[in-house]
């Protein structure tokens, strides 16, 4: 019976075309919103859960699970992370690595990019390939020889209290710079190609040297690209986990992302403390992202779309 009713429907008087289209689109729109909203909430949920778990004592979540109503909420774990686990110290360590790392990387990469994009040198393309390909290798390919070499490079005590490059910030900073150069050169060279060549030609007529053409003329025009790359690079160096894990053995020198691993106990792990640690580690990058979202996204897409 019902089978016969269904095909009978289309015989109903056809509605005028325009409203029909509208009526058909509406549910589609709502469907899209419902889908996007559901996905957004699903993407947000793990972060919110981490924040929620970090505010609750271990006894409570071990008895009732993370997905239960709160009885006590406190910032105790944050206090504990900062006072007992020395999060402040690890933050300072991260800054010691990331700030010089980002600045030197941007300086060196912008000059290479300038030379490649603006000076029309022979072999420029090979150099560009060398840098770009280098950035695409997995870290584990280079980590072993670097580990061996750093163990054999002596440094004076005032530079490293381990007397070698191993177990010093120098090792991590150098590797960060060397490894990130490739990406920055690639992005900045693409960006500089979009700048008008006439400005440089005018400068050459005025007798400007290479340094002036780079520092006074090209670099100021690259401010948006440098801001975008700086934001992105800072986040990447901040988030790095492997380099410090391999090249630093003294727990007190670890940057914050690698130090997070130390919050895990030898035999017993307080996951709520770990949640608080994760939130502390994630917070600066989230703040940077929310404040500088435009730069952040520009940095990633500069690399993918050619100016």
């Amino acid at each position, binding site marked *: 019976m019902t089978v016969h009713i269904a095909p009978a429907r289309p015989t109903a008087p056809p509605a005028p075309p325009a409203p029909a289209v509208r009526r058909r689109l509406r549910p589609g729109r709502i469907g899209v919103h419902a889908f996007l909203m559901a996905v957004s909430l699903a993407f947000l949920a793990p972060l919110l859960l981490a924040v929620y778990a970090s505010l609750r004592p271990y006894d409570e979540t071990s008895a009732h699970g993370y997905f239960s109503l709160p009885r006590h909420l406190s910032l105790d774990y944050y206090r504990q992370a900062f006072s007992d686990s020395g999060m402040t110290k690890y933050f300072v360590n991260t800054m010691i690595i990331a700030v010089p790392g980002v600045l030197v990387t941007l300086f060196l990469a912008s000059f*290479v990019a300038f030379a490649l994009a603006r000076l029309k040198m022979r072999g420029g393309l090979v150099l560009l390939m060398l*840098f*770009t390909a280098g950035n695409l290798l997995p870290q*584990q390919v280079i980590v072993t*020889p670097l580990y061996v070499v750093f163990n054999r490079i002596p440094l004076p005590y005032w530079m490293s209290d381990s007397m070698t490059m191993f177990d010093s910030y120098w090792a991590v900073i150098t590797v960060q710079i*060397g490894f990130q150069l490739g990406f920055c050169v690639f992005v900045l060279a693409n960006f500089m190609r979009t700048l008008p060549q006439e400005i440089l030609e005018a400068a050459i007529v005025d007798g400007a*040297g290479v340094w002036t053409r780079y520092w006074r003329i090209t670099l100021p025009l690259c401010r948006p690209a440098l801001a975008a790359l700086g934001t992105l690079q800072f986040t990447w160096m901040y988030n790095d986990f492997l380099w410090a894990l391999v090249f630093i053995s003294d727990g007190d020198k670890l940057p914050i992302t690698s130090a997070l691993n130390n919050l895990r106990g030898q035999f017993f792990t307080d996951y709520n403390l770990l949640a608080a640690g994760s939130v502390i580690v994630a917070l600066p990058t989230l703040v940077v992202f929310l404040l500088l979202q435009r730069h952040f*996204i520009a940095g990633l897409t500069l690399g993918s779309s050619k100016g």
Partner: protein
Amino acid sequence: MSFISARRTGRRVSRRFTGRDLAVLGVLLGIPVLLDIAIVWGPTLASVVLSFTSWDGIGDIKWVGTQNYENLFTNYPQFWPAARHNLLWLAFLGLVAAPFGLLLAVLIDRGVRFSRFYQSTLYMPVVLSLAVVGFIAQLIFSRDQGALNAVIGDTKSPTDWLGDPNLNIWMVLLAAAWRHTGYVMILYLAGLKAVDPSLKEAAAIDGAGEAQTFFRIVFPTLRPVNVIVGVITVIESLRAFDIVYAVNHGRNGLELLSVLVTDNIIGEASRIGFGSAIAVVLLAVSLGFVVTYLVQELRGEKNR
């Protein structure tokens, strides 16, 4: 003739750069190039060489030929599971996370309201450290307290999502996809914004449906973005390390090639030669993709 013209251009070049210019170029090009060689290419070569030796990092370096590779392929039980997991990682990010990111980008690009909110939220996991992603995954998937088991409500025989060696890789892949999707979405969003709207209009006038327009017109123009997404996906899956290391140091069903390399050098055994052989396997796979990508780039460069 050609000799004379060559000399002439040579002279012009030297006149273009004064001595000071050459010094600036030498120092400021020299440092980054040396750094790139010292940090990236030198060690890469050294890894290849060391992979043919047996070395513990202290004693003499002994040449052993391909013995490390034979051991690796025949009697190192972790190797094949690790390689399989890396491939699974690639397949999951490439066939699930990346298309999902594209779908989200297409939906957001259609100009729905609140698109900025969706964009920011979906992109947020990308700024997190992979290690943090690994720790957060434990809050969700932990057996006794995890949110997932609480939602399912199975209290009698709770599933150990991260402890079961048959299941945990999938949970970790979900966590990795959480981060990868947003990355892919942003790249495609930028690509979609650059698509000439008149192309779509022309297709609509010719009577193409929405799906047809997308697959026949829009998607092919996104080729540069597709290449980038492909490269990023491959690199991410070969580099995968932090999440599994944060979860359980890459054991018990979560073995990855990167973890094996790290274990062999900073572990107690310190088998540098053997660790290098695993690294070379990683290198070989990634170079295959990198070279393909660079050839494409090179072609684009010539057309410029």
